[in-house]
């Protein structure tokens, strides 16, 4: 007889609280999540969708006018040649990073709590990157020659300049979007099969039948599927770190004081994860409440996310401090001036908004009560979303508006079209997101089932 260790005899302190609460069964998970996509949504959804779609139309209208009239409709001026469009681009790319971190890095680290939020966060990544890609696309001015950015053989025998960080961006963000989409779809296949098998109407049967590609859930399929998932996670992991690093080189490889620093890549990555988690949490709190997913997305999930925000928020705070230190320590007059100008110049209001939202307010997460209070964390995540937009505004605009020559200094102010594009991009984001939660399973059912205690064959040895 071999030695048996009773699980109950181990100190309960080491035991993790259950990931899914409320005595769920496999069937109850399927029912809970699939039924959201099968029933008519409430009036709240319709109202939200109408508003979001209206704002998205404003985005498309503004883009149309931009193409007609040119980038002169924005508030750009002589020193500030990158305005809100680039701010929005960096903001939206950053938002996406939390999704990839949750789906890829937490998967590699076997953080099983991720299963409740990963689908959701990956969808957010894809929609955020769509919003992000619009901005540099329309910022080029002559959109009809935007294909110059891609290495397409052409009659001019012209090739892109691979030494330019702006071109690195095209590849980094383009790859990021494509890989995120493939990863998301791979994860969706078993759940699309669930919707296919539950479908009542012919249309749903056809659509989900085609999308699920005839998935049968056989172990001979799972074997390849799981390895593909692992490989995609492994390939996405460096993307979390590389994409925003490449975005930061748009700035860091230039000679503008305030941009030309080596801290930018890690600083941008930390900021991206920080802002992305804030956005995931904002959306998850609302969706959880509306669709009654309290047992699947538990307060423990939120607390873990809050801890990640506390950590990355402090990394960002450290980067703000270190930028100042290096500006002084380098003895470079231009650098020193730029940073003093940020904190006390004409954009001081933006700088202190950023510091307050990103550095001071997240410190509240040191308190367990606040980490576990939904209203408190909801408000804090909104502040972080605002703060992180302002961070990009401070970096882009305050550095450009006062560079080497005082005679070229100018103050940048947005026009109505800058505002309409930003607001419109939120409209597009929420339109896509609302469509997603209406028509696709917003929680990865097969993955959640896989982390339930009943999924482990050993579970039945003890309980039978």
């Amino acid at each position, binding site marked *: 007889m071999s030695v048996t260790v009773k699980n109950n005899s181990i100190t309960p302190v080491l035991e993790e609280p259950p990931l899914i609460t409320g005595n769920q069964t*496999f*069937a109850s998970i*399927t029912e809970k999540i699939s039924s959201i996509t099968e029933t008519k949504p409430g009036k709240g959804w319709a109202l939200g969708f109408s508003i979001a779609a209206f704002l998205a139309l404003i985005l498309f209208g503004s883009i149309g006018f931009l193409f007609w009239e040119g980038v002169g409709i924005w508030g750009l001026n002589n020193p500030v040649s990158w305005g809100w469009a680039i701010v929005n681009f960096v903001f939206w790319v950053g938002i996406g990073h939390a999704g990839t971190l949750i789906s890829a890095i937490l998967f590699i680290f076997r953080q099983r709590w991720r299963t409740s939020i990963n689908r959701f966060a990956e969808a957010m990544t894809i929609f955020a990157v769509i919003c992000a890609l619009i901005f540099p696309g329309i910022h080029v001015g002559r959109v009809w020659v935007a294909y110059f950015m891609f290495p397409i053989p052409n009659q001019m*025998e*012209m*090739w*892109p*300049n*691979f*030494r*330019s960080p702006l071109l*690195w961006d095209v*590849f*980094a963000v*383009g*790859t990021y979007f*494509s*890989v995120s989409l*493939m*990863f998301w*779809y*791979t994860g969706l296949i*078993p*759940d699309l099969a*669930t919707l296919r*098998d*539950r479908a009542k109407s012919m249309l749903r049967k056809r659509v989900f*039948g*085609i999308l699920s*590609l005839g*998935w*049968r*859930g*056989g*172990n*001979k*399929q*799972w*074997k*390849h599927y*799981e*390895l*593909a998932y692992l*490989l*995609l996670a492994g*390939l996405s992991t*460096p*993307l979390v770190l*590389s994409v925003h690093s490449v975005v930061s080189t748009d700035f860091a490889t230039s000679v503008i004081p305030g941009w030309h620093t080596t801290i930018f890549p890690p600083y941008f990555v930390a900021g991206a994860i920080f802002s992305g988690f804030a956005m995931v949490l904002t959306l998850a709190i609302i969706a959880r409440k509306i669709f009654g997913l309290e047992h699947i997305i538990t307060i423990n999930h939120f607390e873990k996310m809050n801890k990640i925000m506390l950590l990355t928020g402090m990394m960002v705070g450290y980067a703000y401090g270190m930028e100042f230190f290096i500006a002084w320590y380098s003895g470079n007059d231009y650098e020193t001036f730029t940073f003093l100008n940020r904190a006390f110049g004409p954009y001081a209001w933006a700088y202190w908004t950023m510091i307050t939202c990103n550095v001071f307010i997240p410190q509240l997460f040191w308190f367990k009560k606040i980490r576990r209070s939904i209203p408190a964390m909801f408000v804090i995540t909104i502040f972080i979303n605002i703060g992180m937009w302002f961070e990009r505004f401070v970096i882009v605009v305050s550095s450009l508006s006062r560079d080497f020559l005082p005679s070229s200094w100018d103050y940048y102010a947005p026009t109505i079209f800058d505002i309409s594009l930003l607001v419109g991009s939120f409209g597009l984001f929420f339109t896509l997101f609302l469509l997603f939660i209406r028509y696709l399973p917003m929680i990865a*059912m*097969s*993955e959640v089932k*896989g982390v339930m205690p*009943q*999924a*482990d*064959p050993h*579970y*039945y*040895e003890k309980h039978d």
Partner: protein
Amino acid sequence: MSNERIEGILAEFKNPAELLKAAEKMRDAGYKDYDCHSPFPIHGMDKAMGEKRSILGWMVGPVAFVMVIFGFLFEGWTSTIAYPLVISGKPLFSYQAYGAVAFAIMVLTSALTALVGMLALNKLPRFHHPVFYSDRFAKVSDDGFFVSVEAGDKQFDREKTKAFLESIGGTHIEELIAND
């Protein structure tokens, strides 16, 4: 009907543990053309079924290796031979600048290989399969655990296989009959 023919047998099991035990017995009985269907991957099932590790890694790895070199050389070729352009006095072959794009090309092509390779190894998309003749099989993506044996298997015998599946704990044993 004259065209009626049996394409396989399907048996249902109660839970992941029973499915795992059934898989071991199927393996020991010498079945090859069978599969264990579940709503999620079950830990230890590959071993129970006697399945080898997926070869997908051997498809993605070489693609990654070749494409990162291709990306690097392609960038070098465009900027030195195809379209040499001096910008801020930088050397034409600035290999330091090629890393980001070569990396992106590698990741993009490898991810594509992982997805397409997985589908190819699983022979998907395949919309028509004997297991779909069964109505009960719809449970597989909810909370059903099934073993399917295909008629092409060497061990397959309409009555013996059914009896065997029953003896290892299978319920709702069903013949998968094609009607065409």
